């Protein structure tokens, strides 16, 4: 039943061949179609702008007060592109290969190749928009190696690459808003998908200011709503990031793929206490010069935890630079999942540092000695400042304390090669879909994927769908499906507002987060996951009987906003656990303790699990049904990842 619609033919020609074979919509007919874009981050803003330029009518929706604030803005490090400007051996195939390998062979070859192929166009487009990338003295674009890549293919704008790329896409979007081709709805949240005869035909939204529930009709709906990392309560996501739009679409028939693939980023500022509302990531470019270590012994670690010793008091021979020791060739630059897991191991052994003992050191003393403090400041100044603001510790004088945090979700709504979900006319772009990063995403590839999907893939593929509709007729906004869906949304809101128990929504969200982190975090076991499933089911019951939701619908009501989102996170959490339980192998960010090599590395079981898990919703409190998309590798050989 799952057809990935990957075109036949050699890998390198699939996309150009497919572009030719897809149907086009006559320029004069494009204005007869309306496309709904939910989310205005890199994927959403770039898609909306590009589609409007082609002549389609576009409506965009975001929960923030402006499209410019979508969480893509917080990406720091950079964006990959196979430009080979550095003459260091990069190519489209190498970027493709690195992405497939980095994803631990759990991504679809054809999609990843296309991503690498259009990566070069993204940089051209962004520069034309006036995105101020870093440059060399000769005026050419600068590149750096990022996240352990052996080539320098990462373009960057100081530590604010996501901001500059998003403002570029936002400016393109603004241009179309000004021309009247895009209608922008801010402070609006999508609460459901409207289907007519099985096709996506609109959405139901809530105006967060007035509470008004509205239906919007369109010929296609694009979900560009980001990832679901906030299921863990604490993550590096923005406070408002949520899964609701994607989850509602899932409940209307869109399969959800690989939900257990979450990325835990190694270089985040550790948790300090119960009051913590979110975690702050520091770009992993820090690992280019920082050295990760913990004390060799538990005794020394305890003294550090109690404040009896300082990091500088620990002698060189008493330090364990565990990444350098275990992975001599990649050292501190091993992929994110490997770095994270090793930090957790050190902490679990009792060798963690800081007051809580749940952190490891990231030390710049050697780099400062080698490069001088000024050079280090030039490279990482904004990150060091950020660290200082939050911790009140000076990283030029003492090592940073870091610990992994949830950062990105590789899983998401299942899409075919055209980025269409299993609901005709419903698409998913960027982090919202599952398609390009397999079980683990490489650094500087999220921005690339968001913009690739939005600027260069969807403008072609959505046209093919619309051209094949066989009609230019406007969507019938009086169709009963709109009224029915709107009523269902209102019923749910009323049910939420009727909750008047003793626990706040945040209490329940924190409980969910702890369950997920403990049992479905960096290391997972069948026993733990089974336990988590029961706990989440109980939590769901408790939510619907004992949560406290205040206020009314017709106002800015954060209590209500959060409640709706957390209710969906709880349901997603259960599916993540199901998925993690089903996948008895370790791969990428999904580490099952039962499946590891003798050296303690992730052990894939290719004979059994070389597939995408795509889950189908079957009704409230019914088990979801697993569908498998077999992954076929014709161009790369599956190997055990090794970074020794």
């Amino acid at each position, binding site marked *: 039943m799952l057809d990935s619609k990957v075109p036949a033919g050699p890998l390198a020609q699939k996309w150009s061949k497919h572009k030719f074979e897809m149907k086009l919509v006559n320029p004069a007919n494009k204005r007869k179609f309306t496309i709904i874009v939910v989310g205005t981050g890199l994927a959403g803003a770039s898609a909306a702008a590009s589609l409007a330029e082609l002549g389609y009518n576009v409506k965009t929706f975001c929960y923030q007060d402006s499209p410019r604030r979508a969480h893509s803005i917080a990406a720091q490090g950079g964006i990959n592109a196979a430009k080979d400007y550095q003459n260091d051996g990069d190519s489209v195939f190498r970027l493709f290969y690195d992405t497939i390998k980095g994803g631990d062979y759990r991504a679809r070859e054809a999609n990843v190749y296309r991503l690498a192929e259009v990566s070069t166009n993204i940089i051209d487009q962004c520069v034309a928009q*006036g995105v*101020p990338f870093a440059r060399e003295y000769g005026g050419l674009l600068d590149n750096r190696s990022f996240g352990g890549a052996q080539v320098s293919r990462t373009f960057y704008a100081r530590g604010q690459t996501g*901001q500059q790329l998003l403002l570029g896409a936002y400016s393109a979007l603004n241009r179309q808003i000004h021309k009247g081709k895009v209608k922008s709805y801010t402070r609006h949240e999508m609460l459901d998908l409207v289907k007519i005869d099985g096709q996506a035909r609109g959405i139901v939204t809530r105006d967060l200011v007035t509470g008004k529930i509205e239906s919007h009709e369109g010929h296609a709906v694009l979900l560009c709503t980001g990832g679901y990392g906030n299921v863990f309560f604490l993550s590096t996501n*923005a406070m408002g990031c949520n899964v609701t739009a994607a989850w509602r679409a899932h409940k209307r028939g869109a399969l959800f793929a690989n939900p257990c693939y979450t990325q835990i980023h190694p270089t985040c500022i550790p948790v300090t206490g119960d009051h913590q509302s979110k975690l*702050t990531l520091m770009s992993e470019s820090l690992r280019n010069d920082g050295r990760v270590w913990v004390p060799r012994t538990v005794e020394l670690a305890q003294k550090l935890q109690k404040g009896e010793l300082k990091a500088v008091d620990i002698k060189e021979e008493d330090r364990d630079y565990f990444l350098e020791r275990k992975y001599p060739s990649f050292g501190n630059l091993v992929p994110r999942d490997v770095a994270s897991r090793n930090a957790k191991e050190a902490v679990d052994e009792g060798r963690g540092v800081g007051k809580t003992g749940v952190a490891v050191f990231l030390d710049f003393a050697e780099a400062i000695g080698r490069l001088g403090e000024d050079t280090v400041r030039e490279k990482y100044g904004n990150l060091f400042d950020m660290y200082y603001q939050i911790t009140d510790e000076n990283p030029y004088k003492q090592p940073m304390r870091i610990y992994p945090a949830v950062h990105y979700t590789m899983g998401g709504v299942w899409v075919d090669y055209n980025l269409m979900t299993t609901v005709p006319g419903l698409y998913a772009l960027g982090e919202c879909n599952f398609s390009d990063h397999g079980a683990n995403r490489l650094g500087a590839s999220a921005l690339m994927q968001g913009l690739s999907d939005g600027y260069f893939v969807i403008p072609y593929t959505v046209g093919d769908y619309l051209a094949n509709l066989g009609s230019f007729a406007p969507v019938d906004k009086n169709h009963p499906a709109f009224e029915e869906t709107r009523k269902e949304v209102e019923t749910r809101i009323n049910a939420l507002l009727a909750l008047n128990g003793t626990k706040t929504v945040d209490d329940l969200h924190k409980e969910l987060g702890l369950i997920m982190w403990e049992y479905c975090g960096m290391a997972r076991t069948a026993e733990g996951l089974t336990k988590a499933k029961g706990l989440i089911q109980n939590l769901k019951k408790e939510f619907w009987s004992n949560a*406290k939701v205040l206020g009314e619908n017709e106002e800015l009501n954060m209590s209500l906003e959060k409640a709706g989102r957390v209710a969906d996170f709880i349901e997603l959490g259960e599916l993540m656990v199901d998925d993690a339980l089903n996948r008895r192998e370790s791969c990428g960010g999904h580490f099952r303790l039962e499946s590891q090599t003798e050296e303690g590395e992730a052990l894939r079981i290719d004979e059994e699990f070389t597939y995408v898990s795509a889950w189908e919703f079957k009704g409230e409190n019914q088990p979801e049904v697993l569908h498998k998309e077999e992954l076929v590798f014709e161009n790369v050989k599956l190997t055990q990842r090794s970074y020794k």
Partner: protein
Amino acid sequence: MSAHMNLTLKVWRQKNDKSKGQFVTVQANDIADDMSFLEMLDIVNDELTRKGEDPIYFDHDCREGICGMCSLVINGRPHGPKYGITTCQLHMRSFHDGQTIVIEPWRAAAFPVLKDLAVDRTSFDRIQQAGGYTNVNTGGAQDANNILIPKRIADEAFESATCIGCGACVAACKNASAMLFVSAKISQFALLPQGQTERYERAQAMVDQMDAEGFGNCTNTGACEAECPKGIKLTNIARMNREYLGAKLFREEDIHG
């Protein structure tokens, strides 16, 4: 070890854009100094929620100083007492036990209050929509390295481009002028080769929209620069004035030949 403090908050409460607002006194007790300011408000809201009272609405999202959503005037200062950071980056170690903290929304006619501490900043979006872009469609861009940009120029354009659109400049200005915000975007494009083609039209259109939104004029007090969390410089305003003057001096045909 982290110290704990008890604080008195005087918070602006306003039901919606139609109602009249007022300061309400709330206690914030047992606040750890390593909490962020917004986490302190989370705790206050948690207590209000448990008592069944309406929590204080404030805008925030990324909580790492980059999205530009958070917007509080704290003891008379946009984004609080420290320089170069947003409200969400402010930590309670900047306050002391027993202190009274006055918390208000941005105040400007062009930023109407929506509820409590949240304001409507869509006027900023409309200014950007008037001209804050280059007119290029997706596809067809030349190779990125065909445009050589001296590092000095690229770095200067970057400095202007770091504006997060929070509106602190407007809140800080006694005239509620948006010139720092507008000039940052105009400067970014005035500096870069990509922005040359339409530099004068852009300046004209963005300034006209700024005026239409009801932002005040600039009287060079420099409060905007002082309060800007991203260090956007006043020189941007000087450049904007030059661009605007250029737009007035040169007729269309002079610009395009």
